[in-house]
């Protein structure tokens, strides 16, 4: 007999259908068997475990479409196990891993390795991108068909841009054959070369080499042309400038198959957070100015930006306790994705369902994954959370092996209480 669990008295939320009501939900084994208001007004099914949520929220588990870990190759930064534990603690039930490992995920064997490790760890759902080009070198496209059959959710060179227009054109055309998406890190590399932070007054004062905003804008303009030329599906990762938002807004209006995401640090921080050479604020692309930050928030609010990804890039202490120029870019984000997304809700920038869509149904739809929604017969991947509880981010308690977060001690509101994957509770708040 499969396990049956009833979650009672939930504020049940599903951004995919606009559901927001007091209801109960029944899980049978790995699936959602039923849900609705007053489902068990009489009695609960015999033998079922009953969890009373006392009015707390219950929503689809978060789908994080941009996560880098160190396995294989740099296990000291994060492994599938440590990242899965961090994801579960952050309310994330599915994550898509970037291919920038060592070796790069450009072979079927690499994807099989990830799948095997994920099965062994068995916490959250782990998906992986295939690299768009061999070795992420930007020259030859990978065996996208075979990699798709081996489970690649989409193709990207991850933290590296596909610099060559010719390669990008081929990648977009070829991936279309298999209905797959190309994800671009939009940054024109010759303009960004040697850069350490956003170009402008602060970089000039600090004597740091700046990366102009145009490095991102130019690449987006170019790739939109190539998407139009090929008819391929294109997604821009972590966009950061107001012009990027405008370009994508207009491209969508023209009917191009284009989507984009951003990361919490691009709507919660600005270049001023670099302060006195704070390496934890060194990210790629760099943190921008206040006007850009606001444009990113507006892009999220009006739906131009489809998704929020953690852009989790773990770096150990040795990679960050260095002069700014030498420090590696990246911040961890699995455990801060949810509270920082809710910050947009608490600040009145987005309604709750819309914000939740950015971290559940939208990324799932972009990657064509059957998760991120509450559907009868669908997988029971859920997060129960307290929308209002205030707390302070304490990186010391994080499950990730690396601690490179610029959000340490930030006051936030709302946190996960329980994370459920395929019906199993994989994480639960201690108190």
């Amino acid at each position, binding site marked *: 007999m499969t396990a049956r669990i009833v979650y009672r008295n939930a504020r049940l939320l599903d951004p995919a259908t606009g559901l927001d009501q007091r209801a109960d939900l029944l899980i049978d084994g790995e699936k959602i068997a039923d849900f609705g208001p007053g489902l068990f007004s009489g009695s609960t099914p015999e033998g079922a475990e009953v969890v009373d949520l006392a009015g707390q929220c219950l929503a689809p588990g978060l789908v994080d479409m941009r996560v880098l870990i160190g396995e294989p190759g740099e296990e000291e930064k994060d492994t599938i196990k440590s990242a899965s534990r961090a994801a579960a603690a952050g309310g994330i039930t599915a994550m898509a891993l970037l291919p920038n490992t060592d070796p790069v995920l450009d072979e079927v064997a690499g994807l099989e390795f990830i799948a095997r490790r994920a099965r062994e760890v068995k916490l959250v759902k782990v998906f992986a991108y295939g690299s768009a080009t061999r070795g992420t070198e930007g020259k030859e496209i990978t065996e996208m068909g075979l990699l798709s059959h081996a489970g690649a959710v989409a193709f990207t060179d991850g933290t590296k841009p596909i610099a060559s227009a010719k390669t990008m054109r081929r990648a977009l055309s070829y991936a279309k054959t298999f209905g797959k998406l190309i994800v671009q890190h939009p940054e024109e590399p010759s303009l960004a070369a040697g850069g350490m932070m956003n*170009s402008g*007054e602060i*970089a*000039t*004062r600090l*004597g*740091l080499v700046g990366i102009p905003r145009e490095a991102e804008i130019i690449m987006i303009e170019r790739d939109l042309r190539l998407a139009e030329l090929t008819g391929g599906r294109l997604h821009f990762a972590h966009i950061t400038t107001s012009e990027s938002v405008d370009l994508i807004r207009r491209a969508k209006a023209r009917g191009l198959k284009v989507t984009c995401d951003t990361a919490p640090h691009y709507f919660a921080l600005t270049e001023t957070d670099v302060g006195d050479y704070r390496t934890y604020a060194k990210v790629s692309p760099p943190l921008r100015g206040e006007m850009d930050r606001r444009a990113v928030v507006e892009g999220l609010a009006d739906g131009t930006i489809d998704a929020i990804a953690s852009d989790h890039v773990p770096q150990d202490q*040795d990679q960050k306790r260095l002069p*700014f120029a030498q420090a590696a870019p990246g911040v961890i984000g699995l455990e801060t994705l949810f509270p920082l997304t809710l910050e947009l809700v608490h600040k009145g920038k987005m309604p709750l369902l819309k914000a939740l869509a950015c971290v559940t149904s939208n990324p799932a739809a972009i990657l064509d994954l059957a998760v991120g929604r509450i559907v009868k017969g669908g997988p029971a991947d859920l997060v129960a959370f307290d929308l209002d509880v205030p707390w302070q981010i304490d990186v010391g308690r994080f499950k990730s092996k690396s601690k490179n977060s610029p959000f340490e001690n930030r006051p936030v509101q709302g946190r996960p209480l329980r994370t459920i994957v395929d019906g199993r509770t994989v994480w639960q708040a201690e108190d």
Partner: protein
Amino acid sequence: MSANPSPDTVFPHRHLLGIEGLRAGEITQILDLADGYVEQNRRPVKKSTLLDGRTQVNLFFENSTRTRTSFELAGKRLGADVINMSTDSSSVKKGETLIDTAMTLNAMHLDALVVRHADSGAVKLLADKVNCSVINAGDGHHEHPTQALLDALAIRRRLGRLDGLIVAICGDILHSRVARSNIHLLNAMGARVRCVAPPTLLPSQIERLGVEVHHSMKTGLRDADVVMMLRLQTERMSGQYVPSTREYFYFYGLDYEKLEVAKPDAVIMHPGPMNRGVEIDSEVADDLKRSMILDQVELGVAVRMAVLDLLTRDRRQSDLAGANQ
């Protein structure tokens, strides 16, 4: 010129990491004290015992003969034990990080640490980890505070003031820590600062630092009291930031013809080493009436003595108080 401050006056900073953030009064305090050290350095016996028993380490991660020598002389003339360390002989080549180096030096109980590093902010990182005073001898493209202070001293001694002067800083401002420190200092002291360079050699939004920007020497040097030339690294020239040294010299190299629009008694400065025939014509560089290049070198030692004196005052006074108890 004001009188030397009392030797009891405590300087309110533990380190000298940059000019940005210093107040005009603090800059004046250093310059006034340096004036006194200029006199000491011109005496036959130049050495004093002020820093007797103190240890100064010059830690240079980048080659520099003149700045290192200047700091070495400054420390020795104040009686400190001075040790020079360079990357060639340090453990950095063996993989030691900057923070490891800092911790190691800290365990040796230094009093002053003079640091030059190729990365902006590296000196600050080091200063956060040590107990002694740290002096920035140039970090990346960020700051070179003692160079700006010695430039200011040279101008003040020659022209009698800084306030209200028009100072044109010309050349490779993009890569220049000297330019940034001078901009902060001259602004704080009430001078008008102009930056003159081709757009490729100017950092983004430099005007936000409170300078006028000119791309032509003719407009940039007009009525200037001081013309500060910057060294241009020739390896950065071809095809990168400017097309050739020939073209650069034609438009931006300082010669008498371009100097004509400046004030008749305008002075010429250069932090050295110079590329003669690239950013400056030899005739101008060697014109003793206009060029202050050798004054700058001389005053550099005095300024560094003043900085070492001021930064270690607090500790010297507390040591004295401890000994008297």
